[in-house]
């Protein structure tokens, strides 16, 4: 709320915002707009999304500098802006949600024929660099909604039901990390990962094999553990088992 107050974005003079922010800037946004800056350095979108969600649609369409500029914020969860002898630090602890097409025309891997050459597809995917991909915990492919599904009367899980499940797990995590002063697996510092992300012996073996055969980095190794811990939480399992590790691994995406 303090961040919003600086930008003059608070709607009412003395209101307390109870909803987490949801920012979705257009992909033509500038570096300053995204990270912050200007004459009297103001917070950028990443800080406006603090404690909330930053949604970036059409990720490869972002200017390269802006995309790469996200590296540090995603890692440090805060951004320092230097301007005219002024140095300002803003927090930016946001959940990044991004979307992109499989290829320039959008149909690669779907039932419709893809118009792109292999080189075009590679070039498109290469825009998202290895270091950025490494900082992304979960990648999920989403397919076109078939006509049957669109008109299907059969109900799948409602958002409310899913929300309940998520809240239950968040409560569990908050309880777990009471002493550390953090609230989620994502915030867990590296030095505590081994302590809180206990693996079964089978899972240890799988992760070890995965590390070498999939050429994981230390960062991705840690992230897989944290995601697996969340999957295990949602599965109401005390320990991280093989299926949780395997699922977490499947959400990783490597550089093309």
């Amino acid at each position, binding site marked *: 709320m303090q961040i919003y107050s600086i930008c003059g974005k608070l709607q009412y003079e003395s209101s307390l915002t109870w909803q987490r922010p949801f920012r979705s800037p257009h992909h033509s946004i500038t570096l300053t707009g995204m990270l912050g800056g200007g004459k009297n350095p103001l917070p950028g979108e990443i800080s406006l999304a603090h404690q909330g969600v930053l949604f970036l649609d059409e990720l490869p369409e972002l200017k390269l500098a802006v995309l790469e500029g996200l590296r540090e914020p995603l890692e440090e969860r805060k951004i320092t802006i230097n301007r005219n002898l002024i140095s300002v630090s803003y927090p930016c602890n946001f959940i990044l949600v991004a979307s992109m097409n*499989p290829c320039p025309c959008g149909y*690669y*891997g*779907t039932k419709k024929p893809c118009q792109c050459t292999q080189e075009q597809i590679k070039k498109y*995917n290469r825009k998202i660099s290895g270091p950025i991909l490494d900082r992304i915990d979960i*990648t999920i*492919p989403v*397919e076109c909604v078939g006509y049957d599904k669109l008109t299907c009367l059969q109900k799948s899980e409602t958002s409310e039901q899913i929300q309940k499940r998520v809240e239950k797990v968040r409560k569990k995590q908050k309880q777990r990390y009471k002493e550390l002063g953090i609230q989620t697996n994502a915030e867990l510092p590296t030095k505590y990962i081994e302590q809180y992300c206990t693996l079964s012996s089978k899972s240890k073996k*799988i992760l070890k*094999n*995965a590390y070498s*055969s*999939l050429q994981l980095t230390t960062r991705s190794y840690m992230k897989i553990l944290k995601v697996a811990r969340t999957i295990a939480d949602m599965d109401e399992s005390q320990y991280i088992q*093989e*299926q949780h590790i*395997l*699922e977490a*691994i*499947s*959400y990783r*995406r*490597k550089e*093309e």
Partner: protein
Amino acid sequence: MAKKFSAELTRNGMVIVSGLALGIDTIAHQTCLEEGGKTIAVLGGGFHYIYPEENYQLAQAIVENGGLLMSEYSPSVQANTKNFPKRNQIISQISQAVLVIEAGIRSGAKITAGYAKEQNKKVFVIPNPLDSKNAKGIQQLLERGATMVFQPAQILSQIDTRYLVPLSTPVKIVHARHTKQTNIYSLLSQRPHTINEIVQKLQEKPQQILQKLSMMEIEGIAIKEGNIYKLKEKR
């Protein structure tokens, strides 16, 4: 009609043999399974290329219910229309009799019936409307010695009942390759698949598919490019 005959014959212990093709074959196999019977599908290609693709799950169900998939070809041979007449010959060879539901002039059914005649097996046909495309074909078959039937019971009374298998016969799976990795492997040997395609074809929970795919990736069997999985090329 295929459904009616398949159901009644299955209930009486008949093992239904067909070619897993779309249409009559599929109805014959499916109805047999629905009645709790055993059916044999003779394939026009290798096991890794179940044709048509739509019947992959049917093929699986056939085996799981104590039936049989037969193929003259090694697993990696693609199904080809050139192979179909030979496949039909086998269908006839392993059968006591052939029932023709539809017989277009140049249809597979007629080819099968032709082989049956060579092999001195009975050929049964059912009545078709005079103005249907099958009329000429049925007529030809009748001229060559086929028997017209109106009820499944008529078939049962004209065949050797020693070969009927009571539905209650227990199924004993001797050599089951139950690891579903085999199924994912079979899909990927046909061509690369997206995760969603695999989930749809195997009708399993996405989580389980993802777990198995990760395992295959770690073991070096499969590689992932974007959201497409393919088999790793052997050097």
